[in-house]
């Protein structure tokens, strides 16, 4: 899965042009500046892990990309063109989907009903259940989901991993180009974590640009193609995931913004 990259400093690995490039992003809430000149790139067909401690600015950055927060300064380029993502609808129209930690599923509805919620297929005003069922099954199959017994199961009867799967499938259904996953494995056991990570890989394999927010460095090392580490509102490093990357170096980047000779210069890190 990992792209070959022989370069160690992380600047010259060439995964092609980024699908999304946030350049010089600044964002303040009142007097508090949360994002400082953030330069964030996401490549199609790759998993970009976004790591950082609580309060580093990960969520704010994602919310800027998803159109929930307006940016103060900077440019977001999507597919090469400058994009103005002013509201969530604009993000959805571009194919940017976010799966939040709470998953936002209706427990009293089944898998198909959840996946098509708010965009039901109809035939002459009547719900076209068969078409929705087929599409849901195809989407799940394309993600290699093998743990769901029936697409007509109610979500209340699903396990945590299965729910995560459904939430991701819901996001992917349609024209997803970039999917942001907010800590998809945080509440899962070992086997279910493995299932979800497989799904993340499969997602990128299908050509989708994936942003994985995670606090679990083992997950990051396992599935990420690139890692963007945030520290105090800045991108401390943007590196390909190669054999020089270790758990220790990632933890150092998160906790101090530096690891060896990569990361922020001393001046900025206070």
């Amino acid at each position, binding site marked *: 899965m990992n792209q070959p990259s022989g370069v160690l400093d992380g600047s010259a690995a060439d995964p092609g042009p980024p699908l999304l490039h946030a350049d010089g992003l600044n964002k303040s809430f009142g007097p508090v500046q949360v994002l400082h000149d953030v330069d964030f790139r996401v490549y199609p067909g790759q998993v970009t892990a976004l790591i950082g401690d609580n309060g580093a600015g990960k969520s704010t950055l994602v919310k800027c990309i998803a159109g929930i927060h307006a940016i103060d300064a900077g440019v977001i380029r999507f597919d090469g063109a400058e994009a103005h993502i002013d509201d969530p609808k604009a993000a959805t129209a571009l194919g940017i989907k976010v799966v939040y930690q709470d998953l*936002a599923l209706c427990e009293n509805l089944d898998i198909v009903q*959840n996946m098509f919620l*708010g965009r039901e297929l109809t035939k002459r005003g009547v719900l076209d259940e*068969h078409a929705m069922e087929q599409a849901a099954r195809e989407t799940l*199959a*394309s993600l290699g989901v093998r*743990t769901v*017994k029936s697409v007509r199961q109610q979500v*209340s009867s699903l396990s945590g991993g299965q729910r995560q799967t459904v939430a991701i499938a819901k996001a992917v259904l349609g024209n997803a180009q970039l999917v942001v996953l907010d800590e998809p494995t945080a509440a899962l056991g070992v086997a279910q974590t493995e299932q979800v990570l497989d799904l993340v890989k499969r997602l990128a394999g299908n050509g989708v640009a994936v942003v994985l927010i995670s606090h679990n460095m083992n997950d990051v090392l396992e599935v990420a193609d690139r890692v963007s580490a945030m520290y105090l509102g800045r991108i401390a490093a943007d590196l390909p995931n190669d054999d020089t990357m270790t758990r220790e170096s990632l933890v150092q980047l998160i906790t101090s913004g530096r690891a060896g000779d990569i990361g922020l210069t001393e001046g900025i890190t206070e």
Partner: protein
Amino acid sequence: MSSTESGADVAPVVEPPVGGQALTDFALDEGPADLKGAMRASFDRIRGGELGSIPAVLAIIVLVAIFGLTRPDSFLSKLNFANFLEQASSIIVIAMAVTFVLLLGEIDLAAGYTAGVAGAVLATRLQADWPLIPAAGMSMLVALALGVFTGFMVAKVGIPSFVVTLANVLLFQGILLLLVREGGSVRIQSEAVNDLVGGALSPGLSWLVSAIGVGLFALSQVRRQRESHGAIPMSLVWLRVGFAVVLVGVITFVLNQNRAFANAPAPIKGMPIVIPVLAVMVVVLSFVLSRTAYGRHLYAVGGNAEAARRAGINVQRLRLSAFAVTGVIAGIGGWFLASRVNSVDANTGANDTLLLAVGAAVIGGTSLFGGRGRMVNAVLGGLVLALIPNGLGLVGKTTLLGYDIDFSSSGVKFIASGVALLAASSVDALSRKRTT
């Protein structure tokens, strides 16, 4: 892609599942295809806590058995059967009305008075010599306005529905009193209105209506079977249609017999008009709930409003519309109330009307917590709640364990209805615990 693609049109052989892990993807979607599989699937759903209307059906069977055994001559009489269906009709309609807001996890405590006001508008307009259609239209418009008002207060202003509709109980009661003038009663002369509850179709027409009803049911079942692409076994369709033919046939036959007392001046026979009217309402409203995006969104908001909002559903507008729909249907319930006694007074839709309606919905299996419920639940629950006073009234005075108990007294009826409601909401709460 996996094997699921080809499985749709050819009936596949399904290995019996050996625990959850052994199943591959969508294994259950390729079945059941035979009767045994379908029965197992519904049995699994029941075990999973989705009881649906089973408690209500059981309650109906038990109540009919008890009352039938204690008072076989009066309770099982043809007159009482027709009478009982008419007693149940207004509760059922108002229960269907409140189902819309119950699905959202909201409540409308004033639905009974909405019915009263709508009935009073109809009666007073008819008294003012308006033709039937404009009078009914006016009544419906007023009911809609009351519903929109409630919905606006809940959805836009943001007051909990419990509080808004508690205030509405006083508000609408006041409107009702002004319309019928305190202590007064407005008689209804219109035969069409009075026949809604109390009138009967001719025996020939009864058979025709029954045949059309069963025919449409059979047609919809076959259609659904075809659309399911093998998931519903054909044998199940025949079973259902056969059951419907027998049930409707027997009911129609019984209702077509003369049910008047021996010395009555004219025979009474034929199907009460309320039956086809209720059937049409159930079918139309069920269609809205289960086959349209609007209905789907009601369930979604009731299940997880935040998820629905993020899916792009306008939750505020949906809430408002649900209260509006409740208002209109409750208004139609008001016509039933008025038609039953051929007049409207300050007590129309008052007292226990609303409690019985909400009770009926819940007893039928609609959840007070939102997100779960169907129109059929209102019908079944309404039948249970009408059976209790009807049967108890006929049982009358009995000596039990040395005590003289008058089962026809209001006290006993209230207690019995209260116990039934508590039992039903316990089932609701417990099954909810089980599924989550």
